[in-house]
Structure formats: structure tokens, C-alpha cells
């Protein structure tokens, strides 16, 4: 397997060792996370995270160091670079490190290689049953309520938000999990998309194929701002009426919008880190 050729970064290995996961005799956790594969993938990814991109993460302490939680934030930038950067900050910057389980789109698991990598690193197709099970097991999950509509935002709209689903909120209410809102800024600069080819995407089995300013789908080295807000806890049940749940979702959405605004101000250096309200 190719992954066996990837070198191990000792610092990454120590962080994977520190994760709150139980591995069996083959180094596999009950959800199929392979300790050795994870260490190798994250070692390779750490280089991209630290040197190709640069992530200024704020408010890492707002993410619970143990137990369940739902990370909820904005999508942008054609492909889910933001998801990878959130993963990076949780695994490589947070103390203690945590492995979030992203609720990913089903099409990813249809692709050879992607399916294998996602399965061995704990990234599952977004599915309410799967999410509930992980939360009840005290895991951290990562949700982009905008879904593929979020990554499809063109560069000019990168900091805006499109419609949020209510699934994550019902999940939070049912499992009594805190929601940790985050705002991510810079996705539109890394991969400035000018169009999305939906018909070509359908042929390839993906929602769309993004076209960048420089045509090819290679992100440029970019510095990102990633702001984690204070955990939000909501009272209610998963069966509350839509109006009630939508109001809660809007509260989270407003919080994320505010985090994006502050991230943008940090980026343009109109505020300093001390002035942040997370």
C-alpha cells in the first residue's frame, strides 16, 4: 500500500498516541480508525497544514477537551479545504488533540482511494444514526450545515452563508451535545472559484467541478483564520416544531456570521487578537 511509504513525523505520532481512542490488537478502533494509517496520513498532512498553508486558530480552548460536541461552521472554497484545516487544528494545535469525525458527502465514499482513506481516519458519510452513535460514544463530530451548496459558493461570495439544514440542531437536542460554532476565512482566496461545472460533475459522480481563476484545481498557499466560538447549549427535544428549531439554528448561524466578520477583520488587520469576542 502506498500509505506505508509515507514517513512518520514523531511529533504527530505522539499526538495520535494522546488521542482518546481504544485500538484493538491490529491497531484498529471500533469505528475502523487505523492508528498506523492515521499517523502516516496526518504526518503528510501536517506539512501541508504548517508550511503550504498557514492556519491562525483562535479559541481552541472553546472546544471541549473530552466528551461529545458538534463543531459547526461555514463552508467555502470549492473543495473542503476548510474541513481539512479544522481537522488539522484539532489534531495538531489543540491540547489535548482530538479527532473530529466529519459528516461527509456520500459521493466521497464512492471513490476508490478516498473511500479507503476516509474509512481509516474515521470520516463517515453524514448519516443521523452514525452521528448519534458517535456522539453517544463521546466523540466530536464536524458538520457543515451548508453541505455541497456551501463549497459551491463562488469566490466573491466566500464569506456569505447559504441556507443551513436543521439536522445538526435536532442531533444536538437529542443527544444533549454542545455546539461549538466556528468561522473560517480565506477559503475563497486559496481556491478562487469563478464557476462550477455541474454537468461535468454529474458525469464524474461529484456534485460539480469547480473552475478557478487559474483554471486548474490547485489551491495557492494561503493563510487562513479559524475562530472557534464559545460552546452553545440548547434546551429542547429533537421533535420540537420547525419554527422553534429554526430559531435555534439562526442563533448559531448569526454566531458563525459574527466569527467570520471578526476573522475578516483580523485578516485585514483592522482588529487585533485582543479585541476578539469569541
Amino acid at each position, binding site marked *: *500500500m502506498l500509505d506505508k511509504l509515507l514517513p512518520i513525523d514523531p511529533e504527530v505520532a505522539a499526538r495520535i498516541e494522546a488521542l482518546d481512542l481504544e485500538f*484493538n490488537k*491490529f491497531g484498529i*478502533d*471500533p469505528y475502523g480508525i487505523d492508528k498506523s494509517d492515521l499517523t502516516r496520513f496526518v504526518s503528510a498532512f501536517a506539512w501541508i497544514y504548517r508550511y503550504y498553508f498557514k492556519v491562525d486558530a483562535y479559541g481552541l480552548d472553546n472546544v471541549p477537551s473530552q466528551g461529545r460536541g458538534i463543531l459547526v461552521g461555514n463552508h467555502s472554497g470549492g473543495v473542503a479545504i476548510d474541513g481539512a484545516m479544522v481537522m488539522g487544528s484539532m489534531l495538531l494545535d489543540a491540547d489535548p488533540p482530538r479527532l473530529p469525525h466529519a459528516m461527509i458527502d456520500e459521493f466521497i465514499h464512492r471513490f*476508490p482511494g478516498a473511500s*479507503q482513506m476516509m474509512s481509516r481516519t474515521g470520516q463517515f458519510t453524514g448519516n443521523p444514526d452514525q452521528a448519534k452513535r458517535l456522539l453517544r460514544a463521546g466523540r466530536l463530530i464536524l458538520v457543515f450545515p451548508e453541505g455541497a451548496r456551501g463549497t459551491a459558493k463562488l469566490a466573491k461570495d466566500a464569506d456569505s452563508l447559504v441556507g443551513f439544514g436543521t439536522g445538526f440542531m435536532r442531533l444536538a437536542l437529542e443527544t444533549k451535545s454542545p455546539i461549538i460554532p466556528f468561522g473560517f476565512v480565506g477559503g475563497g482566496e486559496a481556491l478562487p472559484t469563478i464557476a462550477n461545472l455541474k454537468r461535468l460533475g454529474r458525469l464524474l459522480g461529484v456534485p460539480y467541478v469547480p473552475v478557478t481563476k487559474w483554471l486548474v484545481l490547485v489551491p495557492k498557499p494561503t493563510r487562513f483564520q479559524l475562530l472557534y466560538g464559545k460552546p452553545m447549549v440548547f434546551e429542547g427535544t429533537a421533535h420540537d416544531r420547525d419554527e422553534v428549531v429554526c430559531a435555534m439554528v439562526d442563533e448559531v448561524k448569526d454566531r458563525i456570521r459574527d466569527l467570520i466578520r471578526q476573522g475578516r477583520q483580523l485578516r485585514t488587520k483592522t482588529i487585533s487578537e485582543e479585541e476578539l469576542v469569541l
Partner: protein
Amino acid sequence: MKVLVTGVSGKLGRLTALALLQHGYEVVGIDRRAWANAPEAIELFQADIRKRSAEDVFRTHRPDAAIHMATVTHLVHQSPDRMRVNLYGTRAFIHHCHNYGVKQAVFVGRHTFYGASADSPLYHTEDEPPMSAQAFPELADLVAADLYAGSALWRYPEITTCVLRIVYVLGPSKHGTLATFLSGPNVPLVMGFDPLFHFMHEEDAANAIVTALAHKLHGIYNVSGPTPVPLSTIVRAAGRRPIVVPATVFKLGMGRLGLPHLPSGAIDHLKYPIVVDSDTFRRATRYTYQYDERETIDSFRNAP
């Protein structure tokens, strides 16, 4: 207590019969196949579950409990007969249980009931619908047999009926779906996919069946042992060489090029996991397995 086992000459059937003897049950067995050198304590009848001779065994022996394992499960056997055995056999079993005063019935089913797909959750619970029938028509008869057996729960409420959905079994007998797949020195895998496989030691599976009987379980239960392991890891641990083949080549070359003869629906089972949650079974019976994942694979690998 007298227990009748159908399909007793199969590998899991034999192990179950032996485990029953060990636990002090009186065992009567039915099978179309012979069981050479069977223990004398087991009363054997060579008969087809669908035929009158099998019904006579129920009538004359009046068992207190019955375990149905006479289903054709291997995928190579693709004949109309297979479907008849699996469906009419299950119907005959349930009818005989009802007509001859059997108090407890256990149907031994498969976890493949749930099916494998890109969007299915890990850890299926018993209330999930069968998604395998459509993608994998060759398994449809087993799914139907499972559902049919489950219907006995309301059809004949006086019988304590239990449907078990057991994960793949592996062990020194080298029999079963997974063992057959691992039989050669080279094992083909679908490139870029590496599903979790849920399996348990064959003796643990037999003990789980006896445990279900002893606890008089009523309902549908998933049964599993250790946590699942990726297929490529199993292949290597079993001392086999994984040969990675692109999905398209796999589909075209099935039955040729040294690739196994599998129905096309089987490819999904080599791409996506089927993993079950057996908490309900464990809570109801306090069942624990004896062989962990490595010991189970070793027992298969080191068997003569």
C-alpha cells in the same frame, strides 16, 4: 431438554450440536448431508427439511426446542433449488414447530441482511430494513427467510422465537463465506476500498446460539464477537497476499483471471462494511466471546 437442529451436518451445525451436548441438552439432528463419525449421543436423520420424513422427526421426537440452520448460504450455489430450500425450508420449520408443540425456535441468520453501501451507517441495529435485497439479488432469499422467520413472532406468539443475525464466522473448519474468500494464497481486493469486516470464531458463534436458547430469547438479535477489522488486515494476518484489482476489472474478470466466481452484487461487500451492533444480545444474555480478532484469524490460518 430435547433440541432439534436442522442443517446439523454443516460446520456451524456440528459445532452447535456439540456445544448443546456439552451443555447437557439432548440433541436430534436433521440434514440432507451425512455426518460421518458424529457422536453417538446425537440422533441423526438424513432428510430434507421440506419433506415428510423431516416432519416425522418432529412428530415422533417432539423436541422442546428447535434450531434452524438448514439454509444454503454459500454464493456459488446459484440454483432455483437454493431459493426453495431457504424459503420453503424455513416455512416448513416454523409450521412443524407450531404443529408439534415446539416451545422455542431459533432461526440462525446472517448479518449480510443489512447490505453494504456507501451511505450505510457502521453498526446496524436490529430495526433497520434490509438494504441488500435490491443490490444483491443472490442474497434476497436469505433476507426473505430472515423476515419470514421473524413473522413467526406474531404469527405464533406461543412459540418463543428468536432470529439471530450472526456476523461472518471463521475458524479451523475453513468453511463459510469469509473462509472461502480467503482460501487461496492470493486474495483479490477492490482497489481503493478496504471495508471493515465483522467476524467471530466459529465456536463462539455456536456458543452464542446455545446462549440464545438457554436465555429463551424472543425477538431479533444481532450477534458479534470482537470489533471489526479492515479486510486487507485480515488477508495479511491470515498469511495471504492481497492482490489489488480495480473495480471494473474485478467486475469483468469475475470467475476468470484467478478471480473468485462471485455475483456482481458481492463487489459492494468488498467495498463497503457491514458492521452490526450486538449490544441488545449482550445485555440480554451477558454473552462474552472467547477468541479475539487475532486468535480467530490464527485459528483459521494454523488449521491443518
